[in-house]
Each structure stands twice: as C-alpha cells, then as structure tokens.
C-alpha cells in the first residue's frame, strides 16, 4: 500500500508523509566525527607528488586530490578522525600529524 501510493506520488512530484511501522532508517547522515581528532594531518604541498595514496587509504574517505591547485590535498575537516593513516602511507613523507589544539 505504502509503496503503491509512493510510486503514484513520485509521478506527481510532491512531498507527503507516510507511516512506517517498526525499525527502519531512511535518513542518510554523517556524524561530525571531526570532533574526535587529537591530531590533524598537515601537508607540505611543495613536496606532494599528487599520487593519491593518502586519498585511497583514508578510511573516512575525506581526502580529495586537486591536481590543478597549489593546496592539492583537501580534507573534509568535519569528518577527518585524525587517524594518521595518510601520513603513514605517504610515499613522499610530506604529511605530518600536528596537535589539533596547538599552533599550526
């Protein structure tokens, strides 16, 4: 019933609430895990070869390499947990972990 109604509604392109019974999740959400961070990665951009190793191994998937930019490694600070894997796997050793609360 719910599904048939929803499929009809889809075509009508309007929002309507439906009752769902029992446990289910339909809100795709992220916790702000950036608040866990004790240390944050700091990149020496001049040394970076933009190889993407840090991006590939980041468990939180919060690193993006911008080949065209000078600050070529971008982090999503809201979610970076500061695990330090990026610094550990970097073949150029150009990422260091610095105290989250200290001076950068």
């Amino acid at each position: 019933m719910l599904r048939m109604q929803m499929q009809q509604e889809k075509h009508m392109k309007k929002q309507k609430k439906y009752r769902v019974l029992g446990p289910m999740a339909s809100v795709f959400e992220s916790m702000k895990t950036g608040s866990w961070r004790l240390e944050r990665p700091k990149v020496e951009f001049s040394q970076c070869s933009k190889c993407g190793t840090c991006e590939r191994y980041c468990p939180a998937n919060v690193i993006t390499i911008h080949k065209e930019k000078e600050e070529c490694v971008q982090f999503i600070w809201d979610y970076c947990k500061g695990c330090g894997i990026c610094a550990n796997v970097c073949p150029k050793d150009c990422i260091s972990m610095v105290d989250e609360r200290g001076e950068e």
Partner: protein
Amino acid sequence: MFDIKSEAKGLVSHGVSACAGCGLELIIRNVLEILGEDTLIVIPPGCSALFCGYGNETALKIGGFQGNLENTAAYAAGIKAGLEMQGNNHTTVLAFAGDGATLDIGIQSLSGMIERGDKVLYICYDNEAYMNTGIQGSSSTPQGASTTTTPGGKVTPRKDLMQIVIAHRIPYAATASPANLADLKRKVKKAKETDGPAVLHIHTPCPTGWAFHPSKTIKISKAAVDTGAWMLYEYDNGTLKVNYKPKSLKPVGEYFKLQGRFKNISQEEVSIIQENINSRFNELLLGS
C-alpha cells in the same frame, strides 16, 4: 527513499562511528565502490552494523537489512530468492559479516548457503575477534593473540575459513587485504560476477583490538601479507592461485611486534606459528 542530510563521495557516509584507523571502514567503502547502488546488504550485529546507523539515520546509501548474528547467509539467500522470483537477476545480494558471525555462530547458515548454490556474495571482514563487544576471542583469533577471553594468548590455531568454503566446492572464494586494494577490488568484481555463491575473506586490522596506533593500519596489513600471517590467494572454479608470492616470507615476528596483542608471545610459540605458516604457504604454492 533516502533523505540525504549530508552528501558523501560514495555510498557510505563520511562520519561513521567506526574507530579512527578502522580497517573495516576502508574495506566497506572499497567494496561498495565496486558493487554500486544495485546492491542489497545484510549485516549482522557487530562493528559493521555501525554502518546501518542508529534510529532513523543510516550511513549506507543502499538498501539493507540488519540481521541476527548467526543467519546473515540465510537472510541473504532468502532475499536473493525473493528477487529472483520477481525476475530480478541483476541485484547483488551482499552478506557482510565479521569473523564471529561467520566462523563461529554463522558457519552453519553459511555452509548451507554455499552448498545450496545460492547466488550471494558473502564477505567476511576478519578482525580476528569480537571487537564490537569488547575484543573477545573468536575461532578466527590467531594463535598467540591476547583478547579479553584469551588473556594469556590464544593457545590453538585459528579456524581456516578458506579451506572450509573450498571443501564445499564453492565457485569462487578469495582472501584479500587492505594491503592491496587493487587486488581486493578485482576480487570483489570477480565475486560479483560469479554465477553462484562467492566468499571473500578480508583481513581487517583493528587498532583498538590489536593494540596498535591507528595510523599503522595499512602498515600492519602489509606486514601480515609480507610475513604470510595473511596469505593472498583465490580459488576460482576448482583452481587455486596464490596472488602474492614473495621469494621468501619475512619472519612472522616482524608482524607480531607491531601489535600489543602479541606482546607476551613466547619465542617457542613464534617458531611453531612460523612453521605452520611455512608449511601452509608451501601447500598453497603446490596446490596452485
């Protein structure tokens, strides 16, 4: 259906409450990157259930069901059967369970699923103990590792999932590791395309349970592969293939010393484990 509150690059949200440096988090992102949206996932309670979220919030952008600990394979088989009966032969049904839910309490339903030939992709992410309940030993905890229920180090060797599933003449089974993500992704693709059951057994370093700094997850998974503590191989339609064959394995002690859980292992035990690794590796090379 999903109400997207915060966008993510892939099918998994960024802020998941997995520990910093969690191997599982890296693995599930890579797995779902290959499998894509046309996937339904079954996850038992455990660390991976964190990805099913809490309350009305989820960290996964695919459909799924959180099952019980021992029946991931059975739920998945039922879902696959239901889809097939409605003419859907394309959706990947992914069972995604830890070592406890696979090798201990879930071995029976997994065995049934493989024997029946249900087309389910079963992934066991193996962090080698019951991590979500507080690091209790499982049958996949390696010999010598200390857990909260093997405080003096586990005295028996681990159960060998690959040999068990191969004994079912499974169409495709492989081990994988975050040490080699390209190899892992190739195997996920291969498993997805298998016409029948497929099992991937993925080594999953756990900073919290293995007592190492979160930054060392990849380093440790590489050490496991280099020492043969975790061997990369696959079983494809009756043929065994070793995917990583170094001229000689590094001493297993090099892998142990990176982790707190092997802190109290004796030299004698290390040599026994080393012998076991050597003979297993030779067996695999001969069999392939």
